[in-house]
């Protein structure tokens, strides 16, 4: 399973990759913002996108809206990992095309549960 991790914090990208590695996943692509993520997606498909919300240049919501307008990105599962936890935030993210939501801080079990929820065939 190939993941695209989108976050302007190299620390958070590393935390997510460490957590995914613990869960047994091995293939990752990293991007520092939404624009860079769209460029990297042009090089090949991924199975799941994990993105931050607040990023420079192109934030997570604009990235997901752009992703959903592409042929290769309209069906890829997207998890948003963020500190924005208000109900209105979640509703806005879902409306933009996010499939599920992970609030920081999170455990490996929570991340696994969310991955399986949006991509149940990828056990």
């Amino acid at each position: 399973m190939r993941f695209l991790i989108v976050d302007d914090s190299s620390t958070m990208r590393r935390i997510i990759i460490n957590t995914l590695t613990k869960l047994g996943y091995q293939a990752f692509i990293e991007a520092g913002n939404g624009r860079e993520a769209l460029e990297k997606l042009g090089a090949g498909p991924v199975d799941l996108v994990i993105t931050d919300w607040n990023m420079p240049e192109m934030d997570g919501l604009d990235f997901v809206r752009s992703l959903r307008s592409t042929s290769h990105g309209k069906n890829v599962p997207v998890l948003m990992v963020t500190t924005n936890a208000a109900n209105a935030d979640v509703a806005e993210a879902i409306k933009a095309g996010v499939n599920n939501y992970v609030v920081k801080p999170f455990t490996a079990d929570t991340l696994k549960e969310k991955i399986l929820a949006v991509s149940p065939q990828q056990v």
Partner: protein
Amino acid sequence: MPIATASAVDVLVQATTDVFETMIFRSIAAQAPIWGHDTRPHSQIVGTVGFTGSSSGYVSFHASLEAARDVTAAMLGMGDNPDDVVVDAIGEVANMIAGAFRTRMARPDDVWAITVPTLTVGSDFYIKPITEADRAIVGFTMDAHQLFVELIITPARVAD
């Protein structure tokens, strides 16, 4: 101190403990809060995140360089040389603490927002709010290290 501020400090302690147990994989022990503007924690790296809602202010996470290295190494599963990422990592710790604090403080009719983190690196500095606000410092022990979380918070606004 106002009851609302004391309650906010309790929430901040819970948020900090949760971040350390969940993301840094270390237990920390909180000490009693110290109130007022005179206490200056000894630290060399400070991550600060502002917040606004029915109250506004900021949350800061203070660490010595040595403590910051250990926190970074534990959080990222790194070896002995996390220096190139330690500032970014402490910013993320502050961001997660403030985010968890914001999540616990917000209510459906009281939306809270937080800023991006800012980092201060150095020694012998003091951050003073220019508005009237309550201030509390909470010390935490993590192994041999002393860490501090600071809360500056204005009194809650009352609806007209």
